[in-house]
């Protein structure tokens, strides 16, 4: 039975901050950058108002913000940070270290296009650039999902079988600065749900000890790890990502019991008899849902698969969702310049390649630099997919939706 909840008017950034306040981690180290700024402002206000007791570290750069979190997390603290775009780019070096040292840091990414040319608006070029760094990535469609993921992320990251950092991704401005209704749980329910951080035991050079820095039983984190060991430690991370595919739905199921809101790795929508379907991430999926409903009213068998968890990539769920669909359009909100397609497109192609019968798959790059992707553009994507389905072939799979040629 779900708990009594309070409806609040919050934008995406406020949802991150409010959930994080309720979680009350030990350390917050962050540097403000548009459109993440509201998170940093709120989290420091909570400190000034005495509503939380986390250590707020006002760092001088994003590189320091994440480095601070690495140190705090290694010492056993719950560490939180948030950034966007070029801020994440400046953190890039440390993203690999946080994951490699298996530190369950939670970071909100308020997705913004990566300059240059300078642009403060939304696309996914920042988090896509960090997709190989060993962080779990959850992409949110609306502020409710942002609030919920900002709570569940801690349990996923800290699970003994996972121990990986998590990025909770929300679209800049579209979510970060747009007021929405968000159902919130009581503080106590959140703190009971996240509980205390637990530690696994490892055998270090002073014997068995918890995996954290402790002067009584010293442990060395981050040593030089050369040809003879580095590869084995990467196998550990590969396994952790596999485990995360099991752990994330378990944590979501437990959260559904208290919140009444269920989440999955993938969310198929009206896919039962779909002939054309769109796959994508983030806030655009709300617009696609709206368009799918309209098309269904007109008799078009349209469907949607929203990918909520992009890392680890939910391959087997994706195969189940798409294998029988004649034509699939992959919506990418980022580029991999010089590559055969956008990142989500390429990974979808790789996942479905081995199937004996597979959909025709085209790539629709959209929304770069915050370019608005309204229902008319999504309708155009479905029209293009219907044409592909009828013809039975794809010419050039690359389409740049809403760009002036």
């Amino acid at each position, binding site marked *: 039975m779900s708990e009594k909840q309070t409806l609040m008017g919050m934008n995406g950034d406020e949802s991150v901050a409010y959930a994080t306040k309720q979680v009350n981690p030990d350390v917050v180290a962050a540097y403000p950058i548009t459109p993440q700024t509201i998170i940093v402002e709120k989290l420091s206000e909570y400190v000034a108002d005495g509503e939380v007791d986390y250590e707020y570290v006002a760092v001088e750069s994003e590189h320091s913000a994440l480095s601070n979190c690495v140190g705090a997390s290694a010492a056993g603290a719950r560490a939180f940070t948030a950034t966007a775009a070029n801020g994440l780019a400046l953190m890039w070096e440390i993203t690999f270290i946080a994951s490699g*040292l298996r530190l369950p840091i939670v970071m909100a990414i308020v997705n913004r296009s990566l300059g240059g040319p300078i642009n403060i608006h939304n696309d996914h070029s920042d988090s896509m650039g960090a997709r190989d760094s060993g962080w779990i990535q959850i992409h949110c469609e609306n502020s409710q999902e942002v609030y919920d993921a900002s709570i569940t992320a801690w349990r996923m990251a800290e699970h003994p079988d996972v121990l990986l950092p998590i990025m909770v991704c929300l679209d800049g401005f579209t979510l970060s600065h747009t007021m929405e209704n968000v159902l919130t749980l009581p503080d106590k329910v959140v703190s009971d749900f996240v509980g205390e951080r637990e530690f696994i035991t490892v*055998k270090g*050079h002073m014997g068995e000890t918890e995996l954290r820095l402790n002067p009584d039983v010293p*442990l060395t*984190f*981050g040593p030089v*790890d050369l040809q003879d060991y580095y590869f*084995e430690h990467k196998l*550990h991370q590969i396994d952790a990502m596999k485990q995360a595919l099991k752990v994330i739905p378990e944590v979501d199921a437990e959260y559904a019991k208290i919140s009444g809101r269920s989440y999955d790795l993938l969310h198929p929508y009206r896919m039962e008899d779909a002939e054309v379907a769109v796959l994508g991430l983030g806030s655009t999926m709300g617009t696609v849902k709206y368009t799918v409903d309209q098309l269904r009213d007109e008799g078009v068998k349209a469907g949607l698969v929203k990918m909520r968890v992009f890392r680890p990539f939910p391959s087997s769920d994706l195969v189940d969702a798409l294998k029988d669909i004649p034509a699939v359009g992959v919506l990418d909100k980022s580029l991999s310049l010089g590559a055969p397609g956008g990142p989500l497109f390429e990974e979808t192609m790789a996942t479905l390649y081995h199937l004996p019968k597979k959909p025709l798959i085209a790539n629709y790059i959209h929304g770069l630099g915050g370019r608005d992707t309204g229902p008319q553009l999504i309708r155009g994507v479905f029209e293009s997919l219907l044409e592909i389905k009828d013809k039975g072939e794809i010419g050039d799979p690359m389409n740049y939706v809403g760009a002036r040629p």
Partner: protein
Amino acid sequence: MSTRKPSSKELPIGAVVTKSSMEYETGDWGVMKPQTDLEKCTQCTLCHYFCPEGAITMNDDGYPEVINKYCKGCGICAEECPVKCIEMVRTK
């Protein structure tokens, strides 16, 4: 001598170090070793502080002693000694 290296499953996660650096004997790395002329030594202890490996201790009489098990033979002690009482000698 070859020793079997641990499998991925045997290693602790997080790449934490499983052996103490005390067991990591770096003394066979170099070809030179410091040799100290205690007649000239003023017991200033600079060699002890400059040694990057912590391989020079000061004994009860206040004179430096090189721990050859860890000394890499870098020669920093000889370079820094103000009375030039340390000489690097080829041992291999």
